[in-house]
């Protein structure tokens, strides 16, 4: 803070018609414009946010140069510190890597926007440029005790009502944000028992015992690998949907070599999977071959030991597959 204050003081000293301020301006202003252009042109929102941060910091510096050190600080603290962070959080939430397509979907929007924007630039700039503006009077007279004091004086004096109202607005906004993002539970949370009953009543009875756990192999145990069904096909439902969506699953074939090798070691018949055609006695008659029921159900822990030592009739196929 003290550092900033001194910078501000120095700038202020050299302010009136000083070259110092001009230098500062001509350094900061292009940066700010570049930041702004970067915001508009970057394909990824994250990049845009960072560009905007640059602009805002630049503006903060300009504020200080414009004898508004308090605002400069607030700009950094509130804007770059709080608001931009909020933006970044939301960007994270929405998806960092999603990048926008540059194809314009609304017909004529780009051309019309260009015309409008250029028009407004010319209009405003010409107004600003043609106006015969006096040299700045400086705020020293208005705030003899310093900028912060001056602002505080006004804020808690003349503008105290507005200040209070703004406080109310902020509270309201906070509550509003909570209300908006809050998802109202429209029905009672189901108990575990009810969930279980529901599963039996409504769900596929073959999944009544729960979805199969992912592939658990003698040497490999991973959530990204599907389990194998008795016929040797991978059980899609044994892998988390999220991983499927991300394409982060691994097909079991990758381990086929190892499996084969182990199978050979154990002296189990290669044709093991074909026993699927004649299900063992443990299987309920008429059960669909693609059913997932037995093999992995009991192997709830999904550990090597369980799978390896499993002797039960129902899990025989699973063992055979390995």
């Amino acid at each position, binding site marked *: 803070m003290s550092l900033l204050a001194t910078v501000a003081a120095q700038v202020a000293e050299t302010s009136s018609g000083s070259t110092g301020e001009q230098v500062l301006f001509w350094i900061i202003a292009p940066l700010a414009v570049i930041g702004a252009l970067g915001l508009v042109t970057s394909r990824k929102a994250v990049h845009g946010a960072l560009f905007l941060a640059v602009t805002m910091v630049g503006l903060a510096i300009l504020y200080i140069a414009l004898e508004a050190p308090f605002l400069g600080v607030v700009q950094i603290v509130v804007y770059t510190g709080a608001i931009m962070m909020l933006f970044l959080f939301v960007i994270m939430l929405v998806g960092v890597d999603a990048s926008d397509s540059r194809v314009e979907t609304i017909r004529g929007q780009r051309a019309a926007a260009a015309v409008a924007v250029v028009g407004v630039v010319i209009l*405003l700039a010409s107004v600003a440029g043609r106006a015969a503006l006096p040299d700045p*009077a400086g705020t020293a007279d208005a705030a003899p005790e310093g900028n912060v004091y001056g602002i505080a004086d006004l*804020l808690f004096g003349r503008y105290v009502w507005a200040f209070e109202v703004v406080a109310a*607005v902020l509270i309201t906004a906070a509550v509003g*944000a909570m209300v908006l993002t809050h998802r109202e539970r429209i029905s009672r949370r189901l108990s575990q028992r009810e969930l279980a009953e529901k599963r039996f009543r409504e769900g596929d009875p073959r999944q009544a015992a729960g979805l199969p756990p992912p592939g658990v192999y003698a040497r490999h145990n991973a959530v990204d690998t599907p389990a194998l069904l008795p016929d040797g096909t991978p059980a899609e439902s044994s892998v988390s949907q999220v991983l499927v969506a991300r394409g982060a699953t691994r097909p079991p074939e990758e381990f086929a070599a190892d499996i084969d090798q182990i199978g050979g070691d154990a002296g189990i018949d290669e044709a093991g999977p074909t026993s699927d055609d004649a299900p063992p006695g443990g299987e309920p008659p008429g059960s669909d071959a693609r059913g997932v029921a037995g093999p992995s159900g009991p192997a709830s822990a999904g550990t090597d030991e369980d799978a390896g030592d499993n002797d039960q009739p129902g899990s025989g196929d699973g063992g055979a597959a390995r």
Partner: protein
Amino acid sequence: MNPTSYLVLATLLFTIGAAGVLLRRNALVAFMSVELMLNAANLAFVTFARMHGNLDGQIVAFFVMVIAAAEVVVGLAIIVMIFRTRRSASVDDASLLKL
């Protein structure tokens, strides 16, 4: 230093922000562009405050920042909500006003 340069800068930033709103479909980017426009306005306020030797402009800029903060909170909440239901952050997808 003459305020004109600052004003021209403010103008530029404002229109760049406007262009961002007009051209970007990502709601977050559009929203940030709005923030940029607010900042440009703030710059003009601060410039004029200095020109007139009067702190009122700075006070207005201050309030703009506060209101912007409130606005960002609510706006982002809305964007999050829309994203939740529609799986999209594109402003063009939220076109239910049509028909």
